[in-house]
């Protein structure tokens, strides 16, 4: 299927008072039409910053961004800012982690929703706009859209606010939706429901999703393909089924082993050591200091190698074969 988003060799460095901080080190990924791709990793792995780089939401000052982000044929890194503004929020939208923080408490939901709607559909009159918003809210299983539109975000539950965010994110029928930890701030039961709604709508609208999460379980349910990030680079990429049946990178395996299991009352296995300091230069594999398989060869540059449809940045793959 056609790729709608192709990120290639994305490097990002922030210049700080303590010297340069290397946040992304050659990230490449792609999202195809109708596909849900997950970017999974722990805090500091660079997953959120990748999303922001794709949307062009990074601060301009003190940053060095190299590589390309091609969205439907045009490179967003070199695109004119005016053109970028046009596409952002219409062809490519984003849902943030905490709906309570993303919605403004001093405007009603209707006010904020109208602002979003008028970007993609400036031609609608008030009555049409109202109908459009009500339909969108019904699509996310909100039974009383008028009450919700009349409300302020603080009058609604976290689950309702999250669904409002989803409705806003999808109102322009974007080609790509970037969802940064949607539902993480919510209760598990509510999170489950929001994910089901998002999955169903993305299928019926034909929207592709780049899904950012730290939760492997959520990723397994939601995504078609998974990219595992560690220390600013992608260390493994595979279809969801493959990744969970046959994780190859030692980091992916360690991460899976640290999840508590329903089928076992044994304590999960922690990962020893800690993530490398982004201020330090990294030679070779960033996971080497914490890896049981590590040898001196791991200090060489480690490219992603292909195993069928799986791509892994690890030289010790024969051991698993």
């Amino acid at each position, binding site marked *: 299927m056609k790729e709608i988003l192709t990120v290639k060799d994305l490097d990002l460095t922030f210049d700080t008072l303590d010297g340069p901080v290397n946040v992304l080190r050659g990230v490449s990924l792609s999202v195809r039409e109708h596909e849900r791709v997950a970017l999974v990793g722990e805090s500091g792995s660079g997953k959120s910053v990748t999303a922001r780089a794709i949307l062009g939401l990074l601060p301009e000052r003190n940053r060095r961004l190299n590589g390309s982000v091609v969205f439907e044929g045009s490179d967003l890194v070199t695109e004119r800012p005016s053109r970028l503004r046009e596409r952002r929020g219409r062809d490519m939208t984003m849902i943030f982690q905490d709906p309570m923080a993303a919605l403004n408490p001093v405007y009603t939901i209707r006010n904020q929703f109208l602002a979003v709607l008028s970007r993609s559909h400036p031609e609608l009159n008030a009555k049409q706009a109202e109908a459009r918003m009500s339909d969108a809210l019904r699509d996310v299983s909100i039974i009383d859209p008028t009450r919700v539109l009349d409300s302020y975000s603080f009058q609604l539950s976290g689950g309702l606010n999250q669904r409002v965010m989803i409705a806003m994110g999808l109102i322009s029928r974007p080609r790509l939706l970037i969802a940064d930890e949607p539902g993480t701030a919510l209760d598990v*039961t509510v999170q489950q429901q929001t994910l089901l709604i998002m999955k169903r709508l993305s299928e019926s609208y034909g929207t592709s999703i780049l899904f950012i999460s730290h939760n492997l379980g959520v990723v397994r349910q939601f995504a078609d393909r998974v990219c595992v990030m560690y220390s600013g680079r992608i260390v493994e990429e595979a279809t969801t089924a493959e990744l969970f049946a046959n994780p190859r990178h030692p980091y992916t395996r360690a991460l899976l082993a640290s999840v508590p299991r329903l089928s076992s009352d044994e304590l999960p296995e922690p990962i020893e050591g800690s993530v490398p300091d982004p201020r330090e230069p990294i030679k070779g594999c960033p996971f080497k200091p914490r890896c049981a398989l590590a040898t001196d060869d791991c200090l060489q540059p480690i490219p992603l190698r292909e195993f069928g449809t799986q791509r892994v940045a690890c030289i010790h793959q024969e051991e698993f074969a």
Partner: protein
Amino acid sequence: MSPPLLKVTKANKVFHVGSATVHAVTDISLTVNKGETVAIVGESGSGKTTLANLILGIEVPTSGEVELAGEQLKGRRSKTVRRKIGLVQQNPYSTLNPRKSIGQAIGLPLDVHGIGSRAERRRRIGELLEKVGLNAGHRDRRPLALSGGQRQRVAIARALTTNPDLLVLDEPTSSLDVSVQAHILRLLRDLQQEFDLAYLFITHDLGVVRVIASRVVVMYRGRVVEEGSVAAIFRSPRHRYTQLLLASIPTVSEEDDAFKPDWPWDADVKGDGDPAEGCPFRSRCPFAVERCGQEFPDMRGSGDHRYACFNPRPETSEAIVNLQAEKLERKKA
């Protein structure tokens, strides 16, 4: 038999907010024995933190009793009582004062309780840091220099300074990465074995409960809706809310899926009626029957597994238990 370490009997807490009254905790009874871990599970608004506050003495129950080792706690608590209960909170980024060193943070309870001389305190702080997997060198550092996992270790060390019998752990791992969470869970287990500590482990994450607790209390809107041994509840959840909680766990393998009950995600729920009467969960429950709107069900079931539901989930059948065992066998092979 000696009395349980902690016994809460028919505790109620009512808050008055303007003209409204909020029943944060209704008729809660529970016991925690020495050296055991009891998990309190529920989502936001279930009253689990209010319950913790009642136990810690931060709030006073509107009615009901809290007993510690057979002694009823009433009015202002003495320092001897306060020493026996420690607290670890959720977010180690906000519970440590950024302007104080780690040593000062851990030493504060020693100052308050007037334990030891200066030199003894200093030695004790170093000792506690080693116990939680840090070292004496961390004493003079500030919280800012530590990672989230390290800060949570400091919070645990601080809770241990007064040699408590009971630790109230309020979501101690939910703001941590999963690989760090695994470290903290191990640390908690080791400390429990070494000091014969009892834990009241408050969480919204049933996945963690399975590996750390021996008994579970499930709360919904301030009431206990199901309680029992971890084995019984994970094998056969009976209350529909517990069933929903378990069905919502995002699992990472097929073996784990086999241990998850089903849930009719697309089923219609009525969502009407006065929530003050009847079962508070009925507005979200596709299994609600007429009686659910009339009265709150009494606890039924026996000894190590009780639940309050008029239309409970049937017990997990032998066939499913066998299937689960089979899945596990296959994984091991």
